[in-house]
Each structure stands twice: as structure tokens, then as C-alpha cells.
């Protein structure tokens, strides 16, 4: 797979205008992605970025893409967030004959040129395996979901965890009935409810780090930080720090917006340069534990 090296454009004078269509910027991961794309463009030089935000409205995303096309951008990068698909946007890009690179979110339907993102189910499995190792005596593991399966990213992560832990002797899974809404405050309240019904939890997995951070507080407030370990996904700065500090936050799977964003821009430029590129690129998501956390903690990172 292509790396995030400084290969530069291989065709023309290498100056392009690239439109970025964000579904939402209302989350650190997504705004981090947007910034990473812009930063990489700046690094490359000669690349102009036009960034738009649909504020969580799928119709607006379509309008924004049409808008970008009317400004005659050379390529479009879509950061689809929780969006499952955007046929109208993809169709418009296709009929304009422009390439489109998807970052993070791979749409279920529609034609795109290239996708760069994580394998969420793999991250889940990775977490599951780590937890299985730690819970040699078995125990109850709680799962906190961010939102409905209308966002299949979370679903994939949970499925990954489940696929490993289900059937492991002595391990039972408890799924919180309520969603944590991808935020720390949601993670906190959901965890509190879980603790009321399941005082014997041994571990908790959240579909992202933000919810884990909230859950960690709830566990600390309940005085159970010696009893319950925490596993998350994303590699949010605060999570990395908690892992590095040797708290009960023991593992996360890196889903680095910086890396994906930069690779996404590179990929768009490569395509514009006429290079043959891989259609789908899975960005490896290393498992981060106390042992390697220091290496990923990036004080300047956007996320």
C-alpha cells in the first residue's frame, strides 16, 4: 500500500484544487481529519483545499459536493463520518468525471475511486483478544455503544470484540441498553447505570475513547478502578495519557485521523497524477497499551 511519503504529484505542474466534504466537524476525530488533510496539503505545497461542513445533514453534504464541483475542484475527498452512503453526492461526482477519495468511512453503496480507512472489526478483535488475555479467570465484560447501527463503524468494532469474547469460557457479555452518544458525558451516565445493575463487572469496552474516558470516571467514582479494566478505540490524546499512566484504562486501538487524512490527500494527488492506485487501503491500527503508549502520544497532534 502507498505510504504517506512525500512523493509529490507525478503529473502536470502538480498544482491542484481539492475539495473536502465533511459530513460533520462536530467531533474531535472528524475535525482532526479535516485538519490533517489541510496540513498535508500545505506540506506538499501548490495544493489548494476547499473544505465544507454539512453539519450532519446528508442533503447538505450533497449540496456541498455540488457546490465544490461548481467551483471546478480537481478531486473530492469525502469524510463521511457516521454516514452510511451518499449516492447523490457520489453520482454528482461521477457525472462530473472527477475522482473521489473516501477517508475513514467506506460507503456501502455507490462508486468511489479509492478508500482509505481503518478495519474497525479488526480493531474490535484486537481489543477482544487483549481483554481475553487479561481476564484469564473469566468475568463480565460490558459493551458501551455509541449509537445505533445506522453508524456501522461502531457496530463493526463491537462485532469484533464479541467475535473474540463470545464463547470464551467464563466470560459473559453485557450490552448497555442505552447509547453513550460518542461523548464522555454519555459514557459516564451509561457506565453509572451499568454499575448499578452489574456490580461484578471485570471489564468494559466502549466503541470510542471519548466514552471510555467518561466511563473511567464513573468507575473511579464507584471506587471500582481496581476491579474493572477499560478498552477503547481511536487513540484520543487523553486516552493515550491514561494508558501511559498505568491506570485501569488498559488498551485502545489506534485509528489515527492524522495518518488517514494525510494518506487521503496523498492518494487524491496520486490519482490526479495518473498513478494506478489500490482501490481500498486499510490503514493498520496498532494496539496501544502501556508498553507502547509513549511512542504514540503526540503532544502536537490534532487529536
Amino acid at each position: 500500500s502507498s505510504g504517506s511519503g512525500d512523493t509529490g504529484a507525478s503529473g502536470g505542474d502538480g498544482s491542484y484544487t481539492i475539495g473536502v466534504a465533511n459530513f460533520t466537524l462536530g467531533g474531535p476525530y472528524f475535525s482532526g481529519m479535516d485538519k490533517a488533510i489541510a496540513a498535508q496539503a500545505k506540506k506538499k505545497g501548490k495544493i489548494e483545499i476547499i473544505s465544507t461542513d454539512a453539519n450532519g445533514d446528508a442533503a447538505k453534504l450533497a449540496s456541498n459536493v455540488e457546490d465544490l464541483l461548481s467551483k471546478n475542484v480537481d478531486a473530492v475527498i469525502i469524510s463521511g463520518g457516521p454516514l452510511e452512503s451518499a449516492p447523490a453526492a457520489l453520482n454528482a461526482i461521477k457525472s462530473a468525471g472527477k475522482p473521489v477519495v473516501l477517508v475513514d468511512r467506506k460507503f456501502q453503496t455507490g462508486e468511489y475511486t479509492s478508500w482509505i480507512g481503518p478495519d474497525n472489526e479488526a480493531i474490535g478483535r484486537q481489543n477482544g483478544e487483549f481483554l481475553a488475555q487479561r481476564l484469564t479467570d473469566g468475568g463480565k465484560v460490558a459493551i458501551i455503544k455509541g449509537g445505533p447501527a445506522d453508524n456501522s463503524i461502531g457496530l463493526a468494532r463491537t462485532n469484533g470484540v464479541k467475535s473474540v469474547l463470545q464463547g470464551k469460557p467464563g466470560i459473559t457479555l453485557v450490552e448497555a441498553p442505552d447509547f453513550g452518544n460518542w461523548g464522555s458525558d454519555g459514557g459516564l451516565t451509561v457506565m453509572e447505570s451499568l454499575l448499578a445493575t452489574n456490580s461484578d463487572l471485570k471489564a468494559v469496552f466502549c466503541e470510542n475513547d471519548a466514552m471510555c474516558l467518561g466511563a473511567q470516571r464513573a468507575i473511579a467514582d464507584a471506587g471500582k478502578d481496581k476491579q474493572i479494566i477499560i478498552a477503547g478505540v481511536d487513540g484520543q490524546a487523553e486516552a493515550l495519557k491514561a494508558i501511559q499512566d498505568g491506570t485501569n484504562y488498559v488498551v485502545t486501538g489506534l485509528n489515527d485521523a492524522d495518518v488517514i487524512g494525510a494518506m487521503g490527500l496523498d492518494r487524491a494527488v496520486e490519482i490526479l497524477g495518473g498513478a494506478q492506485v489500490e482501490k481500498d487501503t486499510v490503514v493498520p491500527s496498532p494496539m496501544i497499551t502501556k508498553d507502547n503508549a509513549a511512542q504514540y502520544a503526540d503532544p502536537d497532534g490534532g487529536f
Partner: protein
Amino acid sequence: MTGQLTEPALTPTEPRRLPRLVLAGRDVTVATAFVALIALLVVVAALTAETFLTPTNLTNLLKQMVTTGLLSFGMLVVILTGGIDLSVGSIVAFSGIVTAGLVSGLPIPLAMAVGVLSGIAFGVVNGTLIARFELAPFVVTLAALTTIRGLAFVYSEVPIAPEDPGFFTLGSATAGPIPVTTLIMLAVFLVGGIFLTRTPAGRSIVAIGGNAETVRLAGINVRRHIVLAYTISGACAGLAGVVLASRVGIAQPSVGVAFELDAIAACVIGGASLAGGRGSVRATFGGVLVLVLINNLLNLYGVQSFWQQVLKGLIIIAVILVQRTNRVRS
């Protein structure tokens, strides 16, 4: 004659009421000011953002006003009765996902009709709870917002993207340069305008917002008209949901969060009173234009996303301030 007259009795023919026309003309003044405001926005936009007048952008504008427009008309009808409908965003999601879900089994027009009907059904329930059981509209529709959103997810937790390309037709067809969906919205405003000003039911709805008891005593079935108002709002929301799903090409149960806020804002920017009884279809359409123009302009200027939000709020305040000054000066 024992009374002592201090002044001779005057013939009561003093022509003192001539300038009444000015009073009667008050509405005209406000309307003019409002049109001027929108015109100003457009001119400023055209002069400062070079891409504003490009055909693509204008088409964009026309497309972008559809959802807010449809919801705003329904909202206006409800607001006129002195109520409010917070559930429209959830209805948009429900009707969209149901339509997309049915496309695989039913002919597309029928599936779409079912989507609109679902909106109508929710409207009838809202209206009945409000009119028959005399519950506060805000809470009833707030509860409906929650319940209907839940139902949309119960129907399908995952988004539905129909394969049949016919599903996209409604959302992408154009008549000349104008999107069909925009024409549908304009038709709703046109027919709606006639309904509110020229039919007994429409006038009754307006009057109910002014003084429901008087209307009841005039032999008009107040409850039925309130139910009608929420039904219209539900129908508009259902239609908006279908149109939106067709335009985006995929129906998501999570769509439409906070849509009600833009619809309400459009009505109020158009001078509607949330206490009921005051509001105009034309001015509401103006309100929709203002909102869409604001969004579009901020995008064209490349204002950064969060600053867009900051500015959007400030501009709304500025617009209603200007409006008010005009009304007071009259």
C-alpha cells in the same frame, strides 16, 4: 336649556380621519422592508461572492430551500393556531426510511404516498392529543419527537438505500433549470397561501390563534381545525422526508435532527407570532429565503464551520431586529 356651553357644538364633519390609509398601509410597509432586506442580501451576495450568481449555485439554492420550505409552511399553520410542532424532524426521518423500505415491495409512487401518509398519521395523533385532550403543544410534540425518532430506528436501525434508480427521480429531476422538488415546495406555498387567506378552514385556523373561545362560540369546530393544522404540518414533514430521501438517495433514521428549529426560525423571521393569530405565508417564504441565503453566503465566503454557526445566530438576530424596527416605525 340650563347647561352652560363653553364651546359651540361642532358639526361632527371634521375631516380628521383621512390619513387612515397609513395605518392600513402598515402591513405593506413591513412587507416592503422585508423584500428590501432579501433583495439587499442578494445584491450583496452577487457583488461580493463571485460564484453566487453561477447557475450551479442558484440551482443549489433552489434545492437547499426545499426541506426548510416544506417544514416551514406546515409549521406556520400550526404556529397560527398558537401551537408549535417540534416533531417534524423526526417525521422527516420516519417517512423517509419507511418510503425507502417499501420501495423494494411497492411501486415507487405508492411507497412515497405511504411515507407522506405516515406523516399525516402522526399529525393526526399530535393534533388529537392537543385538541381533544387539551395538552400543551410543546410537550406533546416534544414527546412525539422522541417517540417517532425511536420508531424510525425501530423500523430500520440501518440506513436503507433502494437499488431502483427510479427512487432518485423525484429528488433529481428538473423542469428546465428548476428542480422539481423546488416546484413542489412552491406549489405547497401557493396552495397553502390560498388556503389560509381564502377558505373558511384557513381563516378559522388564523382566528383560533387569536381567540379560540370566540371562534368556538361562533359555531366553528375548534378542535377539528387544530387537528387539521397539525395534520397539515405532519403532511408537509412527511413530504419533506420523502423528497429528502429521494434527493440524498439513501434514507437514514437519524436524519432531520433539529430541523424544527430552522422551520420555526423561518416563520418568526417572517414575522409570525408564536402566540398565534399572526403570520403570513409570503413572509414565511421570505424567512426561508433569508435562512438559505445566510447558509449559502457563509459557505461561498468560505467562512470556517464554527464561525459560520456563530455568524448565523448573529445574523438571525440582526434580521429580526431590522424587522422589528420597521414594524415599530410603521
